[in-house]
């Protein structure tokens, strides 16, 4: 059995940041990930982040991933890749499955940075090859450099839908339209403007009724909505070979549930998320959380939460003095507060506060 001070599950932005902070404080850190390489979804984010300067504005996800991976490596973080963590026992043993069998890692502290997965929704023909998550399409074009199709209908105008639309265009595909069930665009105006400038219409109050084609998608039927109900007579068939679904993400909180962490249902954060305090510690002592698993946000917020969890875990092991820990955590909280400003951040900020209030009460 491998032993460590801190075991982190998930090597995306949150997990990497947590690993870096804990290792910098002197902890022996093991970072587990089911993929063959660390970085999580950052490697497919080829757009520049925006926000304030400390928040990597102008940096692309891929460059940030490289930087974080290098830093973790230099600090001696032990990477355990190709290993899917499937259980936590006694709040201190992480069990993982690898192509070669099962492994166990025992540690003093555990940080869950398992991220989130894409939501989907069903309509006639939605199981046909050619209907896929927007993230799946993004993985194919940006990571593996293959197009999953050439004429695309994007369902959902949140930031994922808008950004992936633009990236599909960059990869050489045609996006015939972005449709949105709500009467207004879900994502940032900057992204929407970029998509529109590229000539892709964004149709609000629209949904997809059916994906047609045998055996694969060759067209889709869309229609107008009035108060979320299809308006008769507005159906039209668009010729597409791919329908991408960008309808939100759900936190991957299974391990937290299993470990007995209290979870709360907060729609603004993507569903059930583990409750935590200001130190990112869950209701189970010694288990911390960071990133999308405790509320779907962005890579930049995930990094700050990861830092908090890494610092707190190291401090709880006596590796940082209370003052040092306090100072570093205050700085991270200030950066987080800045990231959660604005019309999109405010809702999440409120939900996060609610989550932490529950944490305190419990």
């Amino acid at each position, binding site marked *: 059995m491998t032993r460590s001070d801190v075991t982190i599950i998930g090597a995306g932005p949150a997990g990497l940041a947590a690993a870096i902070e804990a290792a910098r404080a002197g902890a022996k850190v093991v970072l587990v990930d089911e993929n063959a390489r660390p970085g999580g979804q950052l490697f497919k984010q080829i757009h520049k982040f925006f926000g304030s300067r400390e928040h990597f504005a102008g940096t692309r996800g891929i460059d940030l991933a490289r930087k974080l991976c290098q830093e973790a490596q230099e600090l001696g973080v032990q990477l355990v890749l190709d290993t899917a963590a499937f259980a936590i026992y006694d709040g201190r043993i992480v069990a993982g499955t690898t192509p070669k069998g099962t492994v166990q890692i025992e540690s003093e502290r555990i940080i869950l940075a398992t991220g989130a*997965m894409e939501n989907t929704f069903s309509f006639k023909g939605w*199981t046909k*090859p050619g209907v896929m998550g927007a993230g799946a399409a993004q993985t*194919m074009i*940006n990571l593996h450099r293959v197009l999953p199709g050439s004429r695309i209908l994007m369902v959902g105008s949140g930031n994922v839908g808008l950004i992936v639309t633009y990236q599909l265009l960059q990869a050489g595909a045609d996006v015939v339209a972005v449709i949105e069930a709500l009467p207004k665009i879900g994502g940032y105006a900057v992204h929407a403007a970029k998509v529109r400038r590229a000539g892709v219409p964004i149709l609000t109050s629209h949904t997809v009724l059916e994906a047609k084609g045998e055996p694969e998608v060759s067209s889709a039927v869309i229609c107008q909505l009035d108060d979320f109900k299809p308006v008769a007579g507005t159906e039209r068939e668009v010729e597409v070979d791919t329908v991408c679904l960008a309808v939100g993400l759900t936190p991957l909180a299974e391990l937290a549930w299993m470990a007995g962490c209290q979870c709360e249902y907060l729609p603004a954060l993507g569903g059930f998320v583990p409750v935590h305090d200001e130190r990112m510690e869950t209701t189970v002592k010694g288990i911390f959380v960071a990133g999308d698993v405790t509320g779907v946000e962005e890579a930049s917020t995930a990094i700050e939460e990861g830092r908090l969890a890494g610092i707190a875990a190291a401090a709880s092991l006596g590796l940082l003095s209370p003052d040092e820990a306090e100072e570093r955590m205050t700085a991270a909280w200030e950066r987080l507060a800045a990231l959660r400003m604005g019309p999109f951040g405010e809702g999440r900020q409120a939900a996060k506060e609610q989550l932490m209030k529950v944490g305190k009460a419990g």
Partner: protein
Amino acid sequence: MRVLDHPILGRLEARRKVTITVDGQPVEAFEGEPILAALLAKGIRVNRITKKRHEPRGLFCGIGRCTDCVMVVNGVPNVRTCVTPVAEGMTVETQQGLGKWGKAK
């Protein structure tokens, strides 16, 4: 279809090629890429046929969670092709239903 030129990522760098066999046909692939990517590059999007309703399935999540992309690889059914890298000489078959075990390599 491969994305050869990209405004941000640049030109697709040449990588070592391997040949795999897909439903009896040779298919060229880049070493290390997922099986699914090699198939998409050739325009193949059906990975399996479901057991009860005999419906086609293909790429859905792209990160190994949904199992819609499973195929019979080297005689082993239910291999998630979106997260399994190609290797020289690999045999890949469209999976029918739950798939049949073949001769493993």
